């Protein structure tokens, strides 16, 4: 530190004590003077050292010391600057600070007012902050592959969280227009870098989810420095993404930039354009597939009819065989039955005939024909009145005489009544 406090090296030179003071200073005057002296004579500078006694107050101001093997220097980093730190440094960490030397008048303590603080080691504070949050989320299971929600194949509404003025939005929109111009895009604009960006992004994600409209959400921004992309490494964004009930695709920066958002999202796209490619299908392909569908439907229907027909034919032939098999014993039985029936009928008829002949004999015996055959005859008038007495006859009239084998027409010649 050339020029800084020259002459105040090892042993400060002291005048001999003068016991008669010509002026008496107040403490405040001394501290104020010293402060001006220090501030006026020392430029901003970088200091390297080891962090100790790091303390961040609720106000956001941070107090700590840097030391080497011999000395220690008190430091303060006010909230405005401390809020840009990705994380608090751990005690013992080698750091580099940039700022101005000053004096805290109230305590008379000189200190470094720090504007910038960076990690000296290979692992920067960003990396450390990233790893801290990553391992915390990992412990909570929020990085598990099993939590990843599948993306819809054909979303009707695509949500986007990014800056409305950024190149990322333009890139996404251009890809969506080319591939799937029928989708609706719902953009929730946010700042994507700087103080408060992380909380804006997380609110934007929650806002889109709350509408229930998008079927997939792209969260991201274009490329930039690690500080520019930092909002996507902050916890609020990680929480909002992991709590989203709608699948989220993270697309931050370029291919090489991996953020916490990428890790918790359902899908990580290397760039915003790539995210757009992922969320919608290519319309050309769908149209081609679709044009083949009516043919497939017809084929399906035909196939179904064909299968039905062969099933029916198969069933019918089976049925035919079955019937034949079933009917064979029936046929045989029927033949048997018929023969028995015939025989039965014949015997019944024979019996009837026998009996008829018997009855005929008796009838014959009783019939008047038999009497006639013995020589008797019956006389009747032409009107079929039986003539039983002499008085029934009239002289000169004709009558009919029934004999055993025919009839005789006769005439009454005379009447001779008996005694």
């Amino acid at each position, binding site marked *: 530190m050339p020029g800084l406090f020259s002459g105040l090296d090892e042993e400060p030179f002291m005048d001999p004590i003068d016991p008669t003071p010509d002026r008496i200073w107040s403490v405040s005057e001394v501290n104020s003077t010293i402060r001006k002296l220090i501030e006026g004579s020392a430029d901003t500078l970088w200091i390297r050292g080891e962090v100790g006694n790091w303390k961040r107050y609720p106000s956001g101001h941070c107090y700590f010391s840097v030391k080497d093997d011999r000395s220690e220097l008190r430091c303060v980093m006010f909230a405005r600057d401390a809020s840009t730190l990705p994380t608090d440094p751990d005690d013992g960490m080698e750091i580099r600070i940039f700022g101005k030397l000053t004096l805290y008048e109230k305590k008379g303590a000189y200190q470094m007012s720090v504007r910038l603080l960076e990690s000296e080691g290979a692992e920067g504070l960003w990396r450390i902050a990233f790893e801290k949050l990553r391992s915390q989320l990992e412990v909570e299971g929020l990085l598990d592959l099993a939590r990843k929600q599948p993306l*819809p*194949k*054909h*979303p*009707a509404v695509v*949500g986007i969280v990014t800056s*409305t003025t950024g190149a990322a*939005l*333009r890139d996404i*929109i251009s890809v*969506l*227009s080319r591939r*799937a*111009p*029928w*989708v*609706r*895009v*719902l*953009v*929730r*604009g946010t700042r994507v870098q700087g103080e408060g960006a992380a909380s804006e992004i997380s609110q934007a994600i929650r*806002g*889109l989810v709350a*509408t229930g409209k998008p*079927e997939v959400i792209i969260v991201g921004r274009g490329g930039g420095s690690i500080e520019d992309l930092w909002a996507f490494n902050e916890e609020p964004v990680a929480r909002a993404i992991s709590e989203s009930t709608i699948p989220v695709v993270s697309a931050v920066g370029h291919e090489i930039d991996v953020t916490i958002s990428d890790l918790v999202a359902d899908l990580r796209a290397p760039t915003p354009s790539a995210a757009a490619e992922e969320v919608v299908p290519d*319309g050309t392909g*769908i*149209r081609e597939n*679709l044009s083949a*569908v*009516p043919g*497939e*439907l*017809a084929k*399906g*229907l035909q*196939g*179904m*009819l064909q*299968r*039905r027909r062969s099933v029916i034919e198969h069933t019918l032939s089976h049925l035919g065989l079955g019937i034949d098999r079933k009917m064979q014993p029936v046929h045989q039985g029927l033949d048997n039955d018929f023969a028995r029936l015939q025989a039965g009928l014949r015997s019944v008829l024979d019996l009837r005939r026998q009996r008829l002949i018997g009855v005929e004999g008796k009838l014959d015996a009783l019939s008047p024909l038999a009497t006639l055959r013995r020589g008797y005859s019956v006389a009747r008038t032409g009107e079929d009145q039986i003539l039983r007495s002499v008085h029934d006859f009239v002289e000169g009239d004709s009558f009919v005489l029934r004999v055993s084998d025919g009839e005789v027409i006769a005439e009454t010649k005379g009447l001779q009544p008996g005694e």
Partner: protein
Amino acid sequence: MSEPEKKPDKLDESKVESQSLEERLRRLEEILSRLEDDDVPLEEALQLFEEGVGHVRDAERVLAQTELKVQELLENGDVQDMELD
């Protein structure tokens, strides 16, 4: 045939207009695989065929849209059309 027929397809007709492309394409896959089933009744097969052709027609109408609709969701929850240069 005598049992009461379930007719999901009929019920669906009312919301055909509001069906998304996703639903239509998924339904088409269902229909195509159902038509390959051995036990699909003739009546149903014909209905499926008709429904499928309808979905193809409607999906093609959706796909015919050429202008991407971009809207912005404002902080107060309103939605407004967004002009992009």
